[in-house]
């Protein structure tokens, strides 16, 4: 190329910028206002969770013995120390919700990381090996899917004993089949493509094929599923906490707080039951909105009309 340079001027990259995949994604994603709102809320709550010691005005378990069941100051209460009121043992509800956010997001991160990790690995193995290995893995996943997630989680916790860690293990096991099936299905589609054949002919080993060649092309649906996985992990953990099978009191877990507050349904102390539930709803809703937005932006095939 050095000897005979072309005489016609070439079009440089600067004049016609190639569409960057990231910019492309952001353009599609930011068009969805619901998804943006979800993302914003998630950022907000993540901030609150990380900086909980600064954001929360009180510690999660400190009891103000002179302030039992104080209503929020904007709804008949008179104590501005307690923005959302206090519970029956004088703990600040707002602070407990902030500390609870830390817990809920942590549950989401751990459950999604564990189930995604194992799920992708099993899915890759099933998709690449096929045959007996594939059959065994998929039948196992079928069994896990025969029970609704919450019931299976209840069963697993019944064996392991109620605790937050066991609840997380149970939920991670329960959601595993989704990732395995998704990965396997995508892998099988990808394996039929030419670039895979090309790298196989070029002599790529099995692990290289799995992790470096094929996996990056399977990521889009997995990212969407992971985002939705956050919402179901948080919801199921709260449900287990509510049933007394998850985090145990006095842990400021949102579902556990609600179970604790159930006895105030009859007595008109509405703030004790309203806010922890609202926190669950908004967080789960935010992750679902984000998931819908990610799906629309990343995977036009799955796009819902």
């Amino acid at each position: 190329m050095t000897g005979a340079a072309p005489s016609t001027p070439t079009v440089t990259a600067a004049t016609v910028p190639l569409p960057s995949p990231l910019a492309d994604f952001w353009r599609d994603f930011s068009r969805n206002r619901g998804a943006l709102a979800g993302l914003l809320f998630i950022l907000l709550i993540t901030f609150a969770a990380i900086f909980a010691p600064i954001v929360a005005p009180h510690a999660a378990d400190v009891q103000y013995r002179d302030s039992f069941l104080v209503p929020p100051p904007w709804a008949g209460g008179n104590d501005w120390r307690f923005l959302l009121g206090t519970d029956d043992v004088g703990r600040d509800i707002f602070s407990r919700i902030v500390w609870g956010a830390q817990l809920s997001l942590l549950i989401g991160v751990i459950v999604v990381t564990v189930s995604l990790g194992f799920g992708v690995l099993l899915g890759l193995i099933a998709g690449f090996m096929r045959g007996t290995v594939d059959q065994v893995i998929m039948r196992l996943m079928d069994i896990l899917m025969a029970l609704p997630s919450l019931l299976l989680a209840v069963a697993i916790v019944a064996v392991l004993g109620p605790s937050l860690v066991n609840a997380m293990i149970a939920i991670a096991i329960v959601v595993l089949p989704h990732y395995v099936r998704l990965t396997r299905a995508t892998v099988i589609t990808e394996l039929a493509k030419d670039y895979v054949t090309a790298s196989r002919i070029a002599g790529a080993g099995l692990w290289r094929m799995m992790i470096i060649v094929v996996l990056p092309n399977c990521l889009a649906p997995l990212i969407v599923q992971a985002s939705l996985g956050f919402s179901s992990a948080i919801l199921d953990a709260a449900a287990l906490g509510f049933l007394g099978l998850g985090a145990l009191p006095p842990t400021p877990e949102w579902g556990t707080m609600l179970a604790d507050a159930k006895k105030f349904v009859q007595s008109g102390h509405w703030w004790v039951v309203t806010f922890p539930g609202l926190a669950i709803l908004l967080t789960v809703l935010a992750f679902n909105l984000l998931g819908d937005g990610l799906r629309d932006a990343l995977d036009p095939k799955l796009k819902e009309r």
Partner: protein
Amino acid sequence: MLRFLSSRLLVLIPTLLGVVLLAFFLVRQLHGDAVEARSGERGITAEQLAERRQALGLDRPLHEQFLTYLGQVVQGDLGKSYVTQRPVLDEFVELFPATIELSIVAMIIAIVIGLPAGILAALTRGSIFDHGVMGAALTGYSMPIFWWAILLIVLFSNILGLTPVSGRLDVLYYIEPATGFMLIDTLLSDEPEAFWSALHHLILPSIVLGTIPLAVIARMTRSAMLEVLSEDYIRTARAKGLSPFRVIWVHALRNALIPVVTVIGLQTGTLLAGAVLTETIFSWPGIGKWLIDAIGRRDFPAVQGGILLIAVTIITVNLAVDLLYGLINPRIRHQK
């Protein structure tokens, strides 16, 4: 059709075996505890412990234990409850109608509201109504239903005083169970006003239980409807000069309903899982509350049997949906 049926049944066998295996390991894990837990007294000798293990058959090889258990399960023997000493199967059968009744009413509510809402949202695509329905559906889908139940109790029972908080029937009435379905039993009884009491008790729990299926049905109906409306045959029907009413309600809806029917069937699992939460909150005497109570009392045979029976119920319903789907849609039946 026969081949379709038999192939579906064959696929079921490993899944059913797997569920039994799962339940087996559940109880094995727990029985190990049970020997030690039930022989809690101090000073128990190693021989005594071994004796008790032998009595429960825990000293035999694992596969032998499993085969014994499998044999019992196939014969319908799910063991006896530690607490009531009654066969687990009997307790389940006795309580199951309460859960079925609640689930059916919940599903009726979900269909009656979700289906028209989804259709109207599709027809008014992009309108405020459409956005409202989809927003509400996503909120319903994200709802922690145990909290939703509490909010409804506060509003309808405490503030407005319209509905009872718990149970299936007012204590004023005593109805001899005939079918186990309170709505039917009260109508058959000589106290017809008890029917209204039963209905009153059903309202809040069924709304709570129906919320997530409602959201799913509305979303699914909308997207199925939109898909069908863009098909060529709809354009043809319109071009033929058929009234918009006929095009939508006869031509479009019939085809849009196929995936919706499947989704409705697949909500059985959601309903049974939701029943655990709903029944616990409303003290509804069904299998969901029974299961949670059994866990609380560490009544392991009941937990194990309950899980197994619920799984079998869901697998059976899913199979029925599968077959129904094959019946409605010949394309599925002839695949493979």
